């Protein structure tokens, strides 16, 4: 069979799935995408808030994108627009002394010249390490214990890249890679607020506090990739991230991908000998396919689409042990006018606003999360996208989108009766940071990790499709022996964030998976 005749069905239309589908269609495969929701994009995309407002659904900023993918798919031509780029990070302080980080410059909150220098030094050294990670991101990770030439080559080049960083960076790598961000930041500076702000990037969306091991990897992960080649810089996408999803959809369609919306997949169909024959949809429809590519998380892929009975027990066990504890919630507010945050000027309101006053604060807040409780003061990443994009709210009105961290999926008291309480608590907290905000609220919405699991179909509401830790990273992601986008079922591949290199709006996993599929199936 030539690849022209091979039919591929992609499960899910998240950004990685669409990237993968588009690459494959461009290579000549016949590709159909099945999405359970009524729009593409998965965790990124525009979302209605009440009648008159729109917000970015879950992800609200682009930071570590893989630009090679964006270029290859020609997303700009297909409609991708940034409403704001190179955002500064404005870090709130309850006492009103905000800290402003702009690339490697930092200002405000009584920061001294010495501390500014320390920040520059930190940035320089971390950027080098992030560069090393990035060099490993763009290709499939090597299989361990393999004697395959490709595997040996990529393992060798990983080693070579580490060596090429120079002796100092290599020693940084060995020293920092498996430890925690708390110890690393303490080594660089004494400025608590600055450290809290930086540590926030390490823990956002991950089940960890600053003192948890592996929190350096997650920090470096945030620094890989970036819009316009600026690593770790944040950008806002126009139309509440809608222009991004729209451009992905256009690029896919242009390449010949058929996208089926409201088409929830029930399971993969097999012959008695476990050869893939296609998909069965929840509405009873069947679709024939030779190859299945799963853009959903590994646990759902194997537990639901394949079913444990069709897999060796060892595989089922490993997949079910992938840690997927979601702990980021999403808060959406529609406001009748611009809020006023303490210590923030009006033109800083459109920047990325962070609330994370210190590492001790983060660690203490995480303690609640660890034990299935919730602190009454939560770290947040806040954006007001309507400042840059007037289409999101009626004239003069605004929308606020915040990722609220340390909101546990497994809340001890259960979510049923707690959701409105936690929403009120978040609003009160914001009202303390931006006095009067409460009175401006027209609409509000709070998505807990459980809501995110239900609506977006991600186990545990874990944004990254699996926590990003050293044992679930590189050749161990999602689980050992499955790190190359393939699976124990022949012709079943994985292309989502659960695979290398992991979560975030990057598109790299989708691209890498497509490359592997082309290699194996052509």
């Amino acid at each position, binding site marked *: 069979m030539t690849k022209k005749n091979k039919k591929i069905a992609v499960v899910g239309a998240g950004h990685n799935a669409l990237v993968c589908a588009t690459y494959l269609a461009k290579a000549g495969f016949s590709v159909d995408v099945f999405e359970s929701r009524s729009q593409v994009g998965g965790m990124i995309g525009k979302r209605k808030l009440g009648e008159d407002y729109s917000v970015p659904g879950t992800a609200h900023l682009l930071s570590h994108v893989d630009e090679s993918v964006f270029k290859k798919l020609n997303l700009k031509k297909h409609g991708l627009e940034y409403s704001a780029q190179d955002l500064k990070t404005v870090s709130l302080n309850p006492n009103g002394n905000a800290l402003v980080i702009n690339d490697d410059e930092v200002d405000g909150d009584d920061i001294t010249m010495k501390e500014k220098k320390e920040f520059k030094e930190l940035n320089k050294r971390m950027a080098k390490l992030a560069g090393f990670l990035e060099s490993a991101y763009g290709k499939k990770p090597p299989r361990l214990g393999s004697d395959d030439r490709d595997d040996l080559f990529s393992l060798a080049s990983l080693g070579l890249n580490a060596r090429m960083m120079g002796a100092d960076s290599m020693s940084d790598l060995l020293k920092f890679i498996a430890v925690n961000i708390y110890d690393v930041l303490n080594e660089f500076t004494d400025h608590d607020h600055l450290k809290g702000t930086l540590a926030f990037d390490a823990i956002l969306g991950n089940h960890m506090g600053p003192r948890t091991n592996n929190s350096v990897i997650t920090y470096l992960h945030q620094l890989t990739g970036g819009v316009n080649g600026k690593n770790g810089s944040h950008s806002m996408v126009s139309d509440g991230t809608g222009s991004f999803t729209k451009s992905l959809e256009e690029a896919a369609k242009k390449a010949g991908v058929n996208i089926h919306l409201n088409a929830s997949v029930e399971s993969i169909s097999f012959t*008695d*000998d*476990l050869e893939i024959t296609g998909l069965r949809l929840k509405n009873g429809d069947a679709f024939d396919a030779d190859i299945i590519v799963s853009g959903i998380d590994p646990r759902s892929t194997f*537990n639901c689409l394949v*079913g*444990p*009975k*069709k*897999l*060796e*027990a*060892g*595989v*089922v*066990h490993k997949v*079910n042990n992938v840690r997927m504890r979601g702990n980021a919630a999403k808060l959406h507010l529609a406001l009748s006018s611009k809020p006023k945050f303490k210590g923030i000027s009006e033109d800083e309101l459109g920047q990325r606003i962070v609330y994370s006053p210190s590492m001790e604060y983060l660690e203490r807040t995480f303690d609640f999360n660890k034990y299935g409780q919730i602190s009454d003061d939560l770290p947040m990443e806040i954006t007001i996208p309507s400042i840059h994009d007037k289409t999101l709210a009626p004239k003069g009105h605004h929308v606020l989108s915040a990722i609220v961290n340390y909101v546990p999926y497994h809340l001890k008291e259960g979510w049923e009766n707690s959701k409105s309480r936690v929403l009120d608590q978040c609003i009160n907290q914001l009202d303390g940071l931006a006095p009067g905000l409460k009175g401006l609220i027209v609409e509000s919405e709070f998505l807990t990790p459980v809501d995110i699991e239900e609506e977006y179909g991600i186990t545990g509401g874990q944004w990254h499709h699996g926590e990003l830790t050293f044992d679930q990273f590189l050749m161990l992601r999602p689980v050992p022996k499955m790190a190359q986008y393939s699976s*124990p079922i022949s012709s079943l591949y994985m292309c989502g964030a659960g695979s290398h290199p992991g979560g975030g709006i990057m598109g790299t996993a989708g691209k890498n998976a497509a490359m592997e599929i082309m290699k194996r199936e052509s």
Partner: protein
Amino acid sequence: MLQQNHYLKSVYETPFHERTSELNILNDWVRWKDYTVPNSYFRVDLEYFAARNSTAVFDYTPMIKHRIKGKDALEYVNRFFTRDMTKIGLHRVGYAVWCDEQGQVIDDGTVFHMRENEYWLLSAERQLENLEVSAIGFDVQIDELTDDVAALGVQGPTSASILKAMGFQEIEMLKPFDIKHYSYHGEEITISRTGFTGDLGYEVLMSNSVALSFYEEMFAKGEIYNIKPAGLEALDLLRIEAGLLQPGVDFMIAEEAIRPGSTRSPYELGLSWLVDLSKPVFNGKAALVEEKKKGSKYTFVKLNINGNKPASGSYLYNQANKKIGTVTSAMFSPSAKANIAYASLHEPWKKEKDKIIAEIYYQKDLEWNRVMEEATIVTKPFFDPDRKRATPAELY
């Protein structure tokens, strides 16, 4: 239910202990898992010959017993074991091995298809965790019954006669690997025509409450059939003659191995007949398919060695004096009248016509001697009497 007071004693006594301790005139005990059982009772050679010429009774109670029960039981065992389990019909027993993800043998055991949707696995090692891990997604319930069920091996040419004399109707009609449930003093008792001796013989599973009375009645009825108790030392000789492997002796239990490469796949243990690669999935399949493609690292063989000095622990060489393997079990077989052994050979060991030469050390009046004896590979069992298969079983 597992015993709760294990910390008070270092070992448990089996339900037969009251009698076995009387019969154990050598007071020679050995620990088997959590229990103490006789290593030998009076004389190992006579215990051995009882199994070959009349009947020997073994206390198998410490054998680990697992029950797998539920709607998906067949599907479950078929995924757990390497062989085709659909071929083990109702009231039949099958020998089976199971593997880890690397296709390495974890343990071997016998699987009893006890009832519709109910299988029992009898094995040397506890497998509850492996069984539970394997149960994700299956409608099965898994229990360990080791301490609730007493077990005896009744092995030898007169064994059918003894059970018949005890009132177990049509026991002689059981074919090898058949199971039959009987009622005994109001309790269910399960007799299977199985054993670890390669001879006519039965295994009896019963609740602890009737164990002692069964034992006493059997010895009373068995006296004229020369029934004897036998210990684990005699059993080891019998199983080597029968061609049966002992986990932890003939192969490393995969989970206990420390060094990579010290474990064995079923192919490397001469058990390829227990692997059915045509099944869509089973634990270890992917690795075994790969091994089949690439070739195995070891071969397991039965050897007939010249001379009469058992080759226990011997190195094996070819004629060029290159080490090609090691002996795992060895004995001089009184029944086969041959110096027999099992050995694991490194692949590829046979270049053209390699000889196999065993380096055997033995003592004479405390003096160590060494001989180099040539060995030949045997493919048939060392000892394989017709009575093992004859149905109806011989009655006396």
